[in-house]
């Protein structure tokens, strides 16, 4: 059912569906949204760690690097959230956000390993 209604913009088509289908769809979309938000938060957290480490290696004092990267983190998060929710289709959203999360975790791991 999620596949059928995978495009958020096609909600109007659900007019003739039963009440249970609508509730299932809503619950599914809610779970999807929460999971996507968590993945976005995870990737922004990893990007914060990576940026902080990079700033430190570029010569910034470590406390300043923490302050700058933490402030940037909120910009990352809002941009990633908007980007994630602007994807066309549930599958594409998952694919894109998962890729970004994987990439950010990999980057954070590489930076950690180089320390």
């Amino acid at each position, binding site marked *: 059912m999620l596949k059928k209604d995978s495009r958020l913009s096609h909600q109007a088509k659900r007019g003739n569906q039963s009440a249970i289908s609508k509730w299932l769809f809503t619950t599914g979309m809610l779970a999807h949204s929460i999971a996507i938000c968590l993945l976005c938060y995870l990737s922004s957290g990893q990007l914060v760690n990576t940026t902080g480490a990079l700033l430190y290696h570029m010569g910034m*004092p*470590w406390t*300043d*690097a923490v302050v700058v*990267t*933490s402030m940037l983190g909120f910009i990352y998060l809002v941009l990633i959230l908007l980007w994630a*929710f*602007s994807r066309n289709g549930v599958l594409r959203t998952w694919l894109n956000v998962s890729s970004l999360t994987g990439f950010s975790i990999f980057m*954070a791991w590489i930076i950690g390993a180089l320390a």
Partner: protein
Amino acid sequence: MKDGFRTRMSLLHTWAGLILSGLLFAIFWTGTLSVFDKEIDRWMMPHTRIHMDTARPLSVDREIIPLLAERAEGAKAWTIVLPAERRPFLTLAYDSAKSHIAQRNSFHPITLEPLPAPNTRGASNFIYPFHHNLTLRQNNIGALLVGIASMGMLCLLISGIVIHRRIFADFFTLRLLRGFSRANLDIHNLTGVVLLPFTIVITLSGLMIAHLIYFPKAPDAVFAQLNPPSVTQERPKSKVREASRKREQDVSSENEDEMTDAREGSRNSPARSRFIAESQGRVRPQAIGQPANVAAIDPMIAATESELGQGAVYMIRVSNPGDAGGVVALRLNGDNSVSQNIDNRRFSTATGEELAHFNSSSTTNVFNFIAGMHYIKFKHWPLRWLYFIAGLGACALIATGLLHWTQARNQRQGSTGFNVSFMNAHNIAAITGIISATGAFLVVNRLLNNREQFAGISSRDLEVYAFFGVWLACLLHALIRVFLNKQHGYRKAWAEQCCAIALIAIAAVGLNWITTGDHLLKTLFTHTYWPVATLDLVLVTSAVMAIYAARKLSVIRES
């Protein structure tokens, strides 16, 4: 593709708004009230309504140290908060051999007579904490919820810009007489456009000042680069807990505590502790075990104020008084600057010699500026009022957004669906409910009139129970009204709760008069005291607006 993007942003705007707006309204409402938290405190604590016009600067050595010597024998730290315009009394805080929890005493700024204990949390200890952690401190759950709502607000603001096709035209459009729906949407668009810089800055700064809660691993990740075998691995967990426990037991002023909690949460890893110490200069001096007298503090204040200006010192903290390793830290107020002032002046307790003082880096100063914009510690009344008005505007933005969704569906399908009825009840409880609850908080404060307890329950708690009780009652009332009459019940509920707000506001003003004798004519004209007069005037204005709204809603219902 362009249309598709706009459609998806529109869906995001709708759903994020529906899910988060109730919480956002509560956060913005309490944040707006927190702009005048000290003034609300004066209203709720009548014994602190003291005119500072005739107060002279106090001598710490001659007048304050003897008070501490009487009360704080064996304390590991003294905190002295000097009287100021918005906090017109002297506060002394100190621990004791029996308990690490700070005991606080307040004193009249002129006579130095002890003031009665405030049996209320006031705005500083309830409305302000509610704003940043919803008073849910366990594991920072409240702060995390506030963070989720704030991030949602940022997404709402940006998606709102994307879906707004006529952003420039709407700046000049306000059709208040073209029916409720049109006027409501115009107000939503207008407040959204006009207040956009304010809402973005206040939301982003609110998130940034609590970065250690929302990105707790950042200091550890960067510190691991600095010191690969990592201090985090060297120290056993018990030490971490011990450090955390000690920090929580610290004796500090109430504002400092609140701001620290808001920023850092309650648990610190070694890297975080070191980050806080190095970036903000918060280092705890250790006692060395050699007894020594406390050197004169007045010359330390005079030296600091000769450099930075009269009244620059607002708080004195003496760590380990009576020990040769003790330190006197003078904290500087931020009256003349938007940026938060964390550059302390430090002196040796034993010799009075100036020690190296902390200077924050340029990057930390940027952070301090952002934090200062949110905390509003500076002394500038017109700007403070602008913050208040902009805060109310942001509340109107959120409320009109919620109303737009339900109003469109109420007109279209007669509000028969469960989701529309639920949102109608939610909106009423979220908007008029919290306003009524705030009024009830004030009314119960005046009914208890600084009594220590009532019916075996402490007054401090009763006020909070009244707040949540009235909020819950408003929700139940809205649910009953809406679900009993899905067609028009919501209008009845709006009208009745508006009447309740008017009644509560008038009752608060009346009770203030009866219990303290401070009626509006007195506080405005004969014995002018602006904090109380202004709050009374705001309450009267709210009552008039609520009556007007209730009358308009009744007319719509009858027609």
